[in-house]
Protein backbone atom coordinates (compact mmCIF):
# COMPACT_ATOMS: atom_id res chain seq x y z
CA UNK A 1 0.00 0.00 0.00
CA UNK A 2 1.44 3.32 -1.09
CA UNK A 3 1.65 6.08 1.48
CA UNK A 4 -0.18 9.30 0.73
CA UNK A 5 2.07 11.82 -1.08
CA UNK A 6 3.30 14.76 0.92
CA UNK A 7 1.36 17.99 0.51
CA UNK A 8 1.63 21.35 2.16
CA UNK A 9 -1.70 22.65 3.38
CA UNK A 10 -1.20 26.33 2.64
CA UNK A 11 -1.23 28.46 5.75
CA UNK A 12 -2.95 31.20 3.85
CA UNK A 13 -6.62 31.07 2.97
CA UNK A 14 -8.12 33.18 0.21
CA UNK A 15 -11.58 34.46 1.11
CA UNK A 16 -13.55 36.00 -1.70
CA UNK A 17 -16.89 37.69 -1.28
CA UNK A 18 -18.08 40.10 -3.91
CA UNK A 19 -19.93 43.40 -4.03
CA UNK A 20 -21.99 42.92 -7.16
CA UNK A 21 -23.29 46.17 -8.68
CA UNK A 22 -27.03 46.00 -9.25
CA UNK A 23 -28.06 49.62 -9.58
CA UNK A 24 -29.10 49.27 -13.22
CA UNK A 25 -31.43 46.38 -12.43
CA UNK A 26 -32.56 47.43 -8.98
CA UNK A 27 -36.12 47.95 -10.25
CA UNK A 28 -36.38 44.18 -10.56
CA UNK A 29 -35.36 43.60 -6.93
CA UNK A 30 -37.51 46.49 -5.74
CA UNK A 31 -40.46 45.04 -7.65
CA UNK A 32 -40.04 41.75 -5.81
CA UNK A 33 -40.57 43.50 -2.52
CA UNK A 34 -44.07 44.41 -3.76
CA UNK A 35 -44.59 40.95 -5.21
CA UNK A 36 -44.19 42.26 -8.78
CA UNK A 37 -42.05 40.81 -11.56
CA UNK A 38 -40.78 43.44 -13.96
CA UNK A 39 -38.06 43.35 -16.57
CA UNK A 40 -36.59 45.53 -19.31
CA UNK A 41 -38.06 46.30 -22.72
CA UNK A 42 -36.04 48.14 -25.33
CA UNK A 43 -37.73 51.40 -26.28
CA UNK A 44 -36.06 51.25 -29.66
CA UNK A 45 -36.73 47.73 -30.96
CA UNK A 46 -39.16 46.33 -28.39
CA UNK A 47 -36.96 43.41 -27.28
CA UNK A 48 -37.92 42.16 -23.83
CA UNK A 49 -35.01 40.64 -21.90
CA UNK A 50 -34.78 38.42 -18.88
CA UNK A 51 -32.61 38.73 -16.84
CA UNK A 52 -33.28 42.47 -17.12
CA UNK A 53 -30.57 44.57 -18.73
CA UNK A 54 -30.15 48.28 -19.22
CA UNK A 55 -28.75 47.91 -22.74
CA UNK A 56 -30.54 46.06 -25.50
CA UNK A 57 -28.83 42.82 -26.58
CA UNK A 58 -30.60 43.05 -29.93
CA UNK A 59 -30.06 46.63 -31.13
CA UNK A 60 -27.59 47.92 -28.46
CA UNK A 61 -29.84 50.85 -27.54
CA UNK A 62 -29.42 52.10 -23.99
CA UNK A 63 -33.05 53.22 -23.70
CA UNK A 64 -35.07 50.65 -21.80
CA UNK A 65 -38.38 50.75 -20.00
CA UNK A 66 -39.62 48.40 -17.30
CA UNK A 67 -42.54 46.14 -18.11
CA UNK A 68 -44.52 43.59 -16.18
CA UNK A 69 -43.58 40.08 -17.23
CA UNK A 70 -46.33 38.21 -15.43
CA UNK A 71 -45.98 35.26 -13.13
CA UNK A 72 -47.62 32.34 -14.95
CA UNK A 73 -44.99 29.83 -15.91
CA UNK A 74 -44.94 26.59 -17.87
CA UNK A 75 -42.34 24.10 -16.64
CA UNK A 76 -39.69 23.40 -19.29
CA UNK A 77 -37.24 21.40 -17.23
CA UNK A 78 -36.07 20.85 -13.66
CA UNK A 79 -33.70 18.98 -11.39
CA UNK A 80 -33.39 17.98 -7.75
CA UNK A 81 -29.99 19.03 -6.40
CA UNK A 82 -28.77 16.55 -3.81
CA UNK A 83 -25.03 17.23 -3.82
CA UNK A 84 -24.80 20.92 -3.08
CA UNK A 85 -21.76 23.22 -3.21
CA UNK A 86 -19.92 24.38 -0.08
CA UNK A 87 -21.91 27.61 0.11
CA UNK A 88 -25.18 25.69 0.20
CA UNK A 89 -24.28 22.82 2.51
CA UNK A 90 -26.57 24.25 5.14
CA UNK A 91 -29.52 24.28 2.75
CA UNK A 92 -31.71 21.23 2.40
CA UNK A 93 -31.50 19.68 -1.08
CA UNK A 94 -33.49 21.83 -3.48
CA UNK A 95 -35.44 21.54 -6.69
CA UNK A 96 -34.66 24.01 -9.47
CA UNK A 97 -36.94 24.65 -12.41
CA UNK A 98 -36.86 26.63 -15.63
CA UNK A 99 -40.27 27.95 -16.70
CA UNK A 100 -41.42 29.94 -19.70
CA UNK A 101 -43.51 33.03 -18.90
CA UNK A 102 -46.37 34.36 -21.10
CA UNK A 103 -44.06 36.77 -22.97
CA UNK A 104 -41.57 34.02 -23.79
CA UNK A 105 -38.99 34.96 -21.17
CA UNK A 106 -37.58 32.02 -19.27
CA UNK A 107 -36.81 32.11 -15.56
CA UNK A 108 -34.73 29.77 -13.39
CA UNK A 109 -35.67 29.43 -9.73
CA UNK A 110 -36.22 26.99 -6.89
CA UNK A 111 -39.63 25.40 -6.56
CA UNK A 112 -41.40 25.52 -3.23
CA UNK A 113 -43.89 23.09 -1.76
CA UNK A 114 -43.43 20.50 -4.51
CA UNK A 115 -41.47 17.28 -4.39
CA UNK A 116 -39.39 16.19 -7.33
CA UNK A 117 -41.94 13.45 -8.02
CA UNK A 118 -44.73 16.00 -8.35
CA UNK A 119 -42.94 17.96 -11.05
CA UNK A 120 -43.82 17.25 -14.68
CA UNK A 121 -42.58 19.04 -17.77
CA UNK A 122 -45.43 21.15 -19.12
CA UNK A 123 -47.15 21.73 -15.78
CA UNK A 124 -48.31 25.18 -14.69
CA UNK A 125 -46.33 26.97 -12.02
CA UNK A 126 -46.38 30.51 -10.72
CA UNK A 127 -43.56 32.87 -9.76
CA UNK A 128 -43.79 34.24 -6.24
CA UNK A 129 -41.55 36.71 -4.45
CA UNK A 130 -39.94 35.81 -1.14
CA UNK A 131 -37.84 37.66 1.40
CA UNK A 132 -35.12 36.03 3.45
CA UNK A 133 -34.97 36.58 7.20
CA UNK A 134 -32.05 38.99 6.69
CA UNK A 135 -34.16 40.99 4.22
CA UNK A 136 -32.85 40.01 0.79
CA UNK A 137 -35.50 39.35 -1.86
CA UNK A 138 -35.60 36.26 -4.08
CA UNK A 139 -38.24 34.31 -5.94
CA UNK A 140 -39.59 30.80 -6.27
CA UNK A 141 -42.01 28.78 -8.35
CA UNK A 142 -45.10 27.39 -6.65
CA UNK A 143 -48.04 25.35 -7.92
CA UNK A 144 -50.49 27.47 -9.88
Amino acid at each position, binding site marked *: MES*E*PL*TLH*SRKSLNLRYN*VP*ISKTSRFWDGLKEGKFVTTKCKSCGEVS*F*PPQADCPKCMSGEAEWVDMGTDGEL*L*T*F*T*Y*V*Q*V*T*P*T*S*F*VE*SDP*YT*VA*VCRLPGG*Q*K*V*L*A*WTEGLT*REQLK*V*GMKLRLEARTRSEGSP*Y*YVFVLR
Partner: protein
Amino acid sequence: MTGVAIVGIGHSKFGRRNDVSIAELAFESIHGAVEDAGIDKKQIQNVTVGSVGGWYEENVPATVVNEYAGLERVGSMRVEAACASGSAAVKNAYLSIASGEADIAMAVGLEKMTEVDTLTAVELMGRGGSYLWEFENFGMTFASYYAMFAVAHMNRFGTTEEDLARVAVKAHHYGSMNPLAQFQKEITIEKALSSQVVSWPLKLYDASPISDGSAAVILASEDTARKLTDTPIWIRSIGASSDSADMSRRDSYVGLGAAVDASRKAYSAAKIGPEMVDVANVHDCFTIAELMAYEDLGFCAKGEGAKLLRDGQTMIGGKIPVNLDGGLKAKGHPVGASGVSMMVEISKQLRGEAGKRQAPIKNGIGLVHNVGGTGHYCYVTVLSRKR
Protein backbone atom coordinates in the same frame (compact mmCIF):
# COMPACT_ATOMS: atom_id res chain seq x y z
CA MET B 1 -2.00 29.28 -46.34
CA THR B 2 0.24 26.70 -44.72
CA GLY B 3 -1.23 23.48 -43.42
CA VAL B 4 -0.95 22.90 -39.68
CA ALA B 5 -0.28 19.45 -38.24
CA ILE B 6 0.04 17.80 -34.87
CA VAL B 7 3.57 16.42 -34.78
CA GLY B 8 3.95 15.59 -31.10
CA ILE B 9 1.61 14.36 -28.38
CA GLY B 10 2.03 13.97 -24.64
CA HIS B 11 -0.38 12.93 -21.89
CA SER B 12 -0.10 12.51 -18.13
CA LYS B 13 -1.88 9.93 -16.07
CA PHE B 14 -5.25 11.42 -15.11
CA GLY B 15 -6.66 11.05 -11.60
CA ARG B 16 -5.98 12.36 -8.13
CA ARG B 17 -2.43 13.54 -8.71
CA ASN B 18 -1.40 14.95 -5.35
CA ASP B 19 2.03 13.47 -6.01
CA VAL B 20 2.89 16.35 -8.35
CA SER B 21 2.62 20.13 -8.39
CA ILE B 22 0.91 21.81 -11.34
CA ALA B 23 4.24 22.48 -13.02
CA GLU B 24 5.39 18.89 -12.50
CA LEU B 25 2.08 17.65 -13.84
CA ALA B 26 2.33 19.83 -16.96
CA PHE B 27 5.92 18.70 -17.46
CA GLU B 28 4.81 15.09 -17.82
CA SER B 29 2.96 15.85 -21.04
CA ILE B 30 5.29 18.58 -22.28
CA HIS B 31 8.21 16.18 -21.99
CA GLY B 32 6.20 13.48 -23.71
CA ALA B 33 5.19 15.76 -26.57
CA VAL B 34 8.72 17.08 -27.13
CA GLU B 35 10.09 13.52 -27.23
CA ASP B 36 7.30 12.37 -29.49
CA ALA B 37 7.93 15.25 -31.90
CA GLY B 38 11.65 14.61 -31.83
CA ILE B 39 12.45 18.30 -31.51
CA ASP B 40 14.62 20.42 -29.26
CA LYS B 41 12.36 22.38 -26.91
CA LYS B 42 14.12 25.57 -28.00
CA GLN B 43 12.34 25.23 -31.34
CA ILE B 44 8.98 25.93 -29.67
CA GLN B 45 8.08 29.57 -30.32
CA ASN B 46 4.66 29.80 -28.68
CA VAL B 47 3.19 28.03 -25.69
CA THR B 48 -0.53 28.36 -25.00
CA VAL B 49 -1.79 26.91 -21.75
CA GLY B 50 -5.46 26.01 -21.48
CA SER B 51 -6.59 26.05 -17.87
CA VAL B 52 -9.53 27.29 -15.82
CA GLY B 53 -7.83 27.47 -12.42
CA GLY B 54 -9.18 28.54 -9.06
CA TRP B 55 -8.70 25.08 -7.54
CA TYR B 56 -4.92 25.34 -7.50
CA GLU B 57 -2.66 27.95 -5.97
CA GLU B 58 -1.13 29.59 -9.03
CA ASN B 59 -2.92 32.65 -10.41
CA VAL B 60 -0.67 33.09 -13.47
CA PRO B 61 -0.12 29.43 -14.34
CA ALA B 62 1.36 29.56 -17.84
CA THR B 63 4.65 31.11 -16.77
CA VAL B 64 4.97 28.67 -13.87
CA VAL B 65 4.60 25.83 -16.37
CA ASN B 66 7.07 27.39 -18.82
CA GLU B 67 9.65 28.11 -16.13
CA TYR B 68 9.64 24.56 -14.85
CA ALA B 69 10.01 23.12 -18.35
CA GLY B 70 12.76 25.57 -19.23
CA LEU B 71 10.72 27.19 -21.99
CA GLU B 72 12.28 30.63 -22.03
CA ARG B 73 11.34 33.77 -23.93
CA VAL B 74 8.46 32.03 -25.68
CA GLY B 75 5.34 33.86 -26.75
CA SER B 76 2.80 32.65 -24.25
CA MET B 77 -0.64 33.10 -22.75
CA ARG B 78 -3.25 31.16 -20.84
CA VAL B 79 -6.64 30.70 -22.45
CA GLU B 80 -9.92 29.81 -20.81
CA ALA B 81 -13.14 28.66 -22.39
CA ALA B 82 -14.42 26.77 -19.34
CA CYS B 83 -14.20 23.01 -20.02
CA ALA B 84 -13.26 23.77 -23.65
CA SER B 85 -10.08 25.57 -22.58
CA GLY B 86 -7.96 22.79 -24.05
CA SER B 87 -9.47 23.20 -27.51
CA ALA B 88 -9.15 26.96 -27.20
CA ALA B 89 -5.43 26.47 -26.50
CA VAL B 90 -5.10 24.29 -29.58
CA LYS B 91 -6.94 26.91 -31.61
CA ASN B 92 -4.59 29.63 -30.40
CA ALA B 93 -1.52 27.56 -31.27
CA TYR B 94 -3.09 26.64 -34.62
CA LEU B 95 -3.74 30.29 -35.49
CA SER B 96 -0.17 31.26 -34.65
CA ILE B 97 1.09 28.80 -37.23
CA ALA B 98 -1.66 29.28 -39.83
CA SER B 99 -0.96 33.02 -39.78
CA GLY B 100 2.73 32.45 -40.42
CA GLU B 101 3.70 33.97 -37.05
CA ALA B 102 5.24 30.75 -35.73
CA ASP B 103 6.62 27.57 -37.21
CA ILE B 104 6.31 25.35 -34.13
CA ALA B 105 3.88 25.99 -31.29
CA MET B 106 2.63 24.00 -28.34
CA ALA B 107 -0.75 23.79 -26.65
CA VAL B 108 -0.78 22.49 -23.08
CA GLY B 109 -4.02 21.58 -21.33
CA LEU B 110 -3.74 21.57 -17.57
CA GLU B 111 -5.96 21.30 -14.53
CA LYS B 112 -5.46 20.37 -10.93
CA MET B 113 -8.82 20.20 -9.24
CA THR B 114 -8.02 18.21 -6.12
CA GLU B 115 -6.03 20.85 -4.26
CA VAL B 116 -9.35 21.98 -2.81
CA ASP B 117 -11.99 19.75 -1.23
CA THR B 118 -14.67 18.19 -3.43
CA LEU B 119 -17.56 20.49 -2.52
CA THR B 120 -15.39 23.56 -3.14
CA ALA B 121 -14.56 22.19 -6.58
CA VAL B 122 -18.31 21.66 -7.10
CA GLU B 123 -18.86 25.26 -6.04
CA LEU B 124 -16.21 26.64 -8.41
CA MET B 125 -17.88 24.81 -11.30
CA GLY B 126 -21.33 25.92 -10.18
CA ARG B 127 -20.13 29.51 -10.21
CA GLY B 128 -19.41 29.08 -13.93
CA GLY B 129 -22.91 30.04 -15.04
CA SER B 130 -24.42 33.50 -14.70
CA TYR B 131 -23.48 34.19 -11.08
CA LEU B 132 -26.25 36.44 -9.85
CA TRP B 133 -29.14 34.70 -11.58
CA GLU B 134 -28.07 31.10 -11.12
CA PHE B 135 -25.64 30.66 -8.24
CA GLU B 136 -26.19 33.38 -5.66
CA ASN B 137 -29.79 32.47 -4.96
CA PHE B 138 -30.16 29.01 -6.45
CA GLY B 139 -26.88 27.15 -5.89
CA MET B 140 -26.67 25.56 -9.31
CA THR B 141 -23.97 22.94 -9.85
CA PHE B 142 -22.64 21.58 -13.10
CA ALA B 143 -24.55 18.39 -12.51
CA SER B 144 -27.78 20.33 -12.05
CA TYR B 145 -27.38 22.16 -15.35
CA TYR B 146 -26.84 18.91 -17.21
CA ALA B 147 -29.63 17.26 -15.23
CA MET B 148 -31.96 19.85 -16.72
CA PHE B 149 -30.87 18.83 -20.20
CA ALA B 150 -31.44 15.20 -19.22
CA VAL B 151 -34.97 15.83 -17.93
CA ALA B 152 -35.90 17.72 -21.09
CA HIS B 153 -34.39 15.05 -23.34
CA MET B 154 -36.06 12.21 -21.44
CA ASN B 155 -39.39 13.99 -21.54
CA ARG B 156 -39.23 14.81 -25.23
CA PHE B 157 -37.62 11.71 -26.71
CA GLY B 158 -38.20 8.97 -24.16
CA THR B 159 -34.52 8.67 -23.31
CA THR B 160 -34.23 6.70 -20.07
CA GLU B 161 -31.97 6.51 -17.04
CA GLU B 162 -30.84 3.13 -18.42
CA ASP B 163 -29.75 4.84 -21.64
CA LEU B 164 -27.66 7.25 -19.60
CA ALA B 165 -26.16 4.36 -17.66
CA ARG B 166 -25.20 2.71 -20.95
CA VAL B 167 -23.01 5.72 -21.80
CA ALA B 168 -21.14 5.19 -18.54
CA VAL B 169 -20.81 1.46 -19.15
CA LYS B 170 -19.29 2.11 -22.58
CA ALA B 171 -16.94 4.70 -21.14
CA HIS B 172 -15.69 2.40 -18.43
CA HIS B 173 -15.35 -0.43 -20.96
CA TYR B 174 -12.89 1.56 -23.04
CA GLY B 175 -11.36 3.21 -19.98
CA SER B 176 -10.33 -0.25 -18.83
CA MET B 177 -8.03 -0.38 -21.88
CA ASN B 178 -6.44 3.03 -21.24
CA PRO B 179 -3.52 2.94 -18.81
CA LEU B 180 -3.70 6.74 -18.40
CA ALA B 181 -7.38 6.73 -17.41
CA GLN B 182 -8.54 7.66 -13.93
CA PHE B 183 -10.88 4.64 -13.83
CA GLN B 184 -9.78 1.43 -15.51
CA LYS B 185 -12.54 -0.91 -14.40
CA GLU B 186 -15.64 -2.11 -16.23
CA ILE B 187 -18.97 -1.29 -14.61
CA THR B 188 -22.49 -2.65 -15.08
CA ILE B 189 -25.71 -0.83 -15.84
CA GLU B 190 -26.98 -1.95 -12.44
CA LYS B 191 -24.02 -0.43 -10.67
CA ALA B 192 -24.45 2.87 -12.53
CA LEU B 193 -28.20 2.97 -11.86
CA SER B 194 -27.77 2.28 -8.17
CA SER B 195 -25.13 4.92 -7.56
CA GLN B 196 -25.85 7.99 -5.46
CA VAL B 197 -28.07 10.67 -7.03
CA VAL B 198 -26.05 13.85 -7.52
CA SER B 199 -28.70 15.99 -9.19
CA TRP B 200 -31.70 13.97 -10.24
CA PRO B 201 -31.86 12.20 -12.68
CA LEU B 202 -28.05 12.25 -12.81
CA LYS B 203 -26.16 9.93 -10.50
CA LEU B 204 -22.53 9.60 -9.53
CA TYR B 205 -21.91 7.30 -12.50
CA ASP B 206 -23.46 9.80 -14.89
CA ALA B 207 -20.78 12.32 -13.95
CA SER B 208 -17.16 12.65 -14.99
CA PRO B 209 -14.90 12.76 -11.94
CA ILE B 210 -12.95 15.64 -10.43
CA SER B 211 -9.49 15.13 -11.85
CA ASP B 212 -5.94 16.32 -12.14
CA GLY B 213 -4.14 15.93 -15.42
CA SER B 214 -2.33 17.46 -18.35
CA ALA B 215 -1.97 16.87 -22.06
CA ALA B 216 0.11 18.57 -24.73
CA VAL B 217 0.25 18.74 -28.50
CA ILE B 218 2.99 20.26 -30.61
CA LEU B 219 1.88 21.80 -33.89
CA ALA B 220 4.03 22.62 -36.88
CA SER B 221 3.67 24.29 -40.24
CA GLU B 222 3.35 22.16 -43.33
CA ASP B 223 7.01 22.03 -44.41
CA THR B 224 8.29 21.48 -40.89
CA ALA B 225 5.68 18.85 -40.15
CA ARG B 226 6.67 16.81 -43.19
CA LYS B 227 10.31 16.97 -42.14
CA LEU B 228 9.57 15.94 -38.58
CA THR B 229 7.27 12.99 -39.07
CA ASP B 230 5.79 10.50 -41.50
CA THR B 231 2.48 10.63 -39.66
CA PRO B 232 1.53 14.28 -39.31
CA ILE B 233 -2.08 14.65 -38.20
CA TRP B 234 -3.48 17.68 -39.99
CA ILE B 235 -5.87 20.09 -38.37
CA ARG B 236 -8.35 20.49 -41.17
CA SER B 237 -10.63 22.94 -39.40
CA ILE B 238 -11.68 24.30 -36.04
CA GLY B 239 -15.27 25.42 -35.65
CA ALA B 240 -15.94 27.55 -32.59
CA SER B 241 -19.22 28.84 -31.29
CA SER B 242 -20.82 30.05 -28.10
CA ASP B 243 -24.12 30.58 -26.34
CA SER B 244 -25.55 32.48 -23.39
CA ALA B 245 -23.97 32.05 -19.97
CA ASP B 246 -27.42 31.92 -18.46
CA MET B 247 -29.47 28.74 -18.94
CA SER B 248 -32.67 30.74 -18.98
CA ARG B 249 -31.65 32.33 -22.28
CA ARG B 250 -31.20 29.09 -24.19
CA ASP B 251 -33.44 28.22 -27.12
CA SER B 252 -33.58 24.54 -26.27
CA TYR B 253 -32.81 22.09 -23.48
CA VAL B 254 -32.47 18.99 -25.62
CA GLY B 255 -29.22 19.97 -27.28
CA LEU B 256 -26.50 22.60 -27.36
CA GLY B 257 -26.89 25.38 -29.91
CA ALA B 258 -23.17 26.13 -29.76
CA ALA B 259 -22.37 22.51 -30.66
CA VAL B 260 -24.66 22.51 -33.66
CA ASP B 261 -23.15 25.76 -34.88
CA ALA B 262 -19.52 24.80 -34.19
CA SER B 263 -19.89 21.50 -36.01
CA ARG B 264 -21.56 23.16 -38.98
CA LYS B 265 -18.62 25.58 -39.18
CA ALA B 266 -16.06 22.80 -38.81
CA TYR B 267 -17.65 20.51 -41.40
CA SER B 268 -18.03 23.34 -43.84
CA ALA B 269 -14.43 24.53 -43.52
CA ALA B 270 -13.11 20.96 -43.82
CA LYS B 271 -15.52 20.24 -46.67
CA ILE B 272 -16.78 17.04 -45.07
CA GLY B 273 -19.98 15.75 -43.53
CA PRO B 274 -20.46 13.79 -40.31
CA GLU B 275 -20.64 10.53 -42.27
CA MET B 276 -16.97 10.96 -43.22
CA VAL B 277 -15.78 10.81 -39.61
CA ASP B 278 -14.06 7.53 -38.70
CA VAL B 279 -13.63 8.13 -35.00
CA ALA B 280 -14.61 10.88 -32.56
CA ASN B 281 -14.09 12.12 -29.06
CA VAL B 282 -17.11 13.97 -27.73
CA HIS B 283 -17.57 15.92 -24.55
CA ASP B 284 -19.18 13.50 -22.09
CA CYS B 285 -18.82 15.53 -18.89
CA PHE B 286 -22.15 13.91 -18.06
CA THR B 287 -23.69 10.92 -19.79
CA ILE B 288 -26.52 13.00 -21.26
CA ALA B 289 -23.91 15.24 -22.89
CA GLU B 290 -22.62 12.34 -24.98
CA LEU B 291 -26.09 11.50 -26.28
CA MET B 292 -26.77 15.14 -27.15
CA ALA B 293 -23.36 15.31 -28.85
CA TYR B 294 -24.24 12.42 -31.19
CA GLU B 295 -27.28 14.40 -32.26
CA ASP B 296 -25.75 17.88 -32.35
CA LEU B 297 -22.85 16.57 -34.47
CA GLY B 298 -25.21 14.89 -36.92
CA PHE B 299 -24.09 11.34 -36.14
CA CYS B 300 -27.82 10.67 -35.85
CA ALA B 301 -31.04 12.67 -35.94
CA LYS B 302 -32.13 14.75 -32.93
CA GLY B 303 -33.64 12.45 -30.33
CA GLU B 304 -32.00 9.29 -31.63
CA GLY B 305 -28.81 9.44 -29.60
CA ALA B 306 -29.90 6.74 -27.18
CA LYS B 307 -30.84 4.46 -30.04
CA LEU B 308 -27.46 5.00 -31.75
CA LEU B 309 -25.78 3.92 -28.52
CA ARG B 310 -28.12 0.98 -27.86
CA ASP B 311 -27.43 -0.27 -31.38
CA GLY B 312 -23.71 -0.30 -30.63
CA GLN B 313 -23.00 2.19 -33.40
CA THR B 314 -20.65 4.24 -31.22
CA MET B 315 -18.51 1.23 -30.26
CA ILE B 316 -15.61 -0.19 -32.27
CA GLY B 317 -17.24 -1.93 -35.22
CA GLY B 318 -20.14 0.51 -35.27
CA LYS B 319 -20.87 3.38 -37.59
CA ILE B 320 -18.91 5.94 -35.59
CA PRO B 321 -16.82 4.80 -32.60
CA VAL B 322 -16.82 7.45 -29.88
CA ASN B 323 -14.59 8.04 -26.84
CA LEU B 324 -12.39 4.99 -27.17
CA ASP B 325 -10.07 6.37 -24.50
CA GLY B 326 -12.82 6.09 -21.90
CA GLY B 327 -14.11 9.60 -22.46
CA LEU B 328 -14.16 12.23 -19.75
CA LYS B 329 -16.34 9.85 -17.75
CA ALA B 330 -13.74 7.13 -17.21
CA LYS B 331 -10.51 8.76 -18.36
CA GLY B 332 -11.13 11.75 -16.08
CA HIS B 333 -12.01 15.38 -16.72
CA PRO B 334 -9.30 17.80 -15.61
CA VAL B 335 -11.26 20.51 -17.35
CA GLY B 336 -8.50 22.57 -18.97
CA ALA B 337 -6.68 19.43 -20.06
CA SER B 338 -9.65 17.61 -21.56
CA GLY B 339 -9.71 19.22 -25.00
CA VAL B 340 -6.01 18.63 -25.55
CA SER B 341 -6.38 15.09 -24.25
CA MET B 342 -9.05 14.49 -26.90
CA MET B 343 -6.65 15.74 -29.60
CA VAL B 344 -4.01 13.32 -28.29
CA GLU B 345 -6.45 10.41 -28.47
CA ILE B 346 -7.67 11.19 -31.98
CA SER B 347 -4.07 11.68 -33.13
CA LYS B 348 -3.24 8.22 -31.78
CA GLN B 349 -6.28 6.76 -33.51
CA LEU B 350 -5.42 8.34 -36.85
CA ARG B 351 -1.78 7.29 -36.51
CA GLY B 352 -2.98 3.75 -35.83
CA GLU B 353 -1.29 3.71 -32.43
CA ALA B 354 -4.31 3.09 -30.22
CA GLY B 355 -3.59 -0.59 -29.61
CA LYS B 356 -6.51 -2.74 -28.53
CA ARG B 357 -8.89 0.21 -28.58
CA GLN B 358 -7.96 1.13 -32.18
CA ALA B 359 -10.88 2.11 -34.43
CA PRO B 360 -10.88 1.08 -38.07
CA ILE B 361 -9.77 4.11 -40.10
CA LYS B 362 -11.33 4.39 -43.53
CA ASN B 363 -11.50 8.03 -44.58
CA GLY B 364 -8.63 9.07 -42.33
CA ILE B 365 -10.78 11.60 -40.50
CA GLY B 366 -11.29 12.09 -36.77
CA LEU B 367 -13.24 14.66 -34.79
CA VAL B 368 -12.95 16.34 -31.41
CA HIS B 369 -16.06 17.91 -29.83
CA ASN B 370 -15.22 19.91 -26.72
CA VAL B 371 -17.91 21.81 -24.81
CA GLY B 372 -17.24 24.58 -22.32
CA GLY B 373 -19.60 25.10 -19.41
CA THR B 374 -23.20 24.13 -20.00
CA GLY B 375 -22.84 24.80 -23.71
CA HIS B 376 -21.37 28.28 -23.19
CA TYR B 377 -18.71 27.27 -25.69
CA CYS B 378 -18.24 24.54 -28.22
CA TYR B 379 -15.12 23.82 -30.24
CA VAL B 380 -15.26 21.17 -32.97
CA THR B 381 -11.91 20.22 -34.51
CA VAL B 382 -11.54 18.06 -37.60
CA LEU B 383 -8.29 16.09 -37.76
CA SER B 384 -7.11 14.20 -40.78
CA ARG B 385 -4.37 11.92 -42.09
CA LYS B 386 -4.43 13.90 -45.29
CA ARG B 387 -3.65 17.58 -45.64
